[in-house]
């Protein structure tokens, strides 16, 4: 089982992505929201991210989906203090990447590599056909 960690500067945005993506995966896969700074204001928090990683400790791998700026650095800093299953930070856009990752992760045989590759396909997703 692969888990998803949703990291955004906004706690509500992370929770919204968790809700949205959780619906299509039917609660089949663990999705944790780790948004906002330590006091809940806009920002990212190494402590919140570390707590999220701990909640996903029993998975076989974790795909972290991030928004912008410090989100990547905060996850990297948290990873230096985390010794659990392998974690990959996705280069995919947050919402679309999490959506495709959740679909892939719903397959019981999906590995972290499969889920990470599925998320990256979000970069080529066409929304509007001209």
């Amino acid at each position, binding site marked *: 089982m692969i888990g998803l960690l949703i990291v955004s500067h906004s706690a509500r945005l992370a929770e919204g992505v968790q809700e949205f993506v959780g619906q299509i995966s039917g609660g089949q896969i663990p999705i944790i929201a780790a948004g906002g700074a330590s006091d809940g204001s806009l*920002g990212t928090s*190494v402590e919140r991210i570390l707590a999220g990683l701990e909640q996903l400790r029993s998975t076989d791998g974790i795909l972290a989906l991030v928004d912008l700026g*410090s989100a990547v650095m905060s996850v990297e800093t948290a990873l230096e203090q985390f010794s659990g299953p392998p974690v990959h930070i996705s280069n995919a856009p947050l919402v679309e990447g999490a959506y495709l990752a959740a679909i892939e992760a719903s397959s019981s045989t999906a590995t972290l590599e499969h889920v990470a590759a599925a998320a990256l396909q979000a970069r080529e997703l066409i929304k509007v056909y001209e």
Partner: protein
Amino acid sequence: MPVTVEHVTHFLTAAAAIIHEHRDELTALDAAIGDADHGANLDRGFSAVLNRLPTVADKDIGTVLKTTGMTIVSTVGGASGPLYGTAFVRAGMALADRHEMSDEDVVLALEAALEGIIARGKAQRGEKTMVDALAPAIEALRTALAEGRSLGRALQQAAAAAEAGAKATIPMLAMKGRASYLGERSIGHQDPGATSTAYLLRALAMTCSRNEEVA
């Protein structure tokens, strides 16, 4: 004259004061090309450091600097949290179990901090970041010490080089961080991270110069 844990504590106190003093200016710089939180974030981080300092006052320099870094990481929500946090932790690792530092140790600690910032932010010189203030400061410090200047004098030159480095970010195109999303519109603004780095070096220079005057 060696640098002691007490001096490091004085530096951190001076750092918190200078960041607090320039909090609005740093936030205004960040408002132009980032997310308008740099001054407020760093002010929160360094005041948390001040609160933690008494709990490590009897420890070695490495522990004080590592505690500073961890406190910044856990209290600063923007990019400067992981960046300055990593810088202080790496400087602390370079000085593990030490109760005194030589001039050369100060250089090594700053180099470890720079390497930490580069590793975390994956930035190079010329990309409109903290690196553009810290790298020339270390070069100026090395040169001044090689010319026989005292540590306090040499750090004054390093701080001046950091300030010049921060000013030199104005015409640069941002390649890293939130400012890079602005593309060409980032040109013409001074980088807030390079500016706060210059203030931290000013605090370090003031602390060491004052120690030499007292001695």
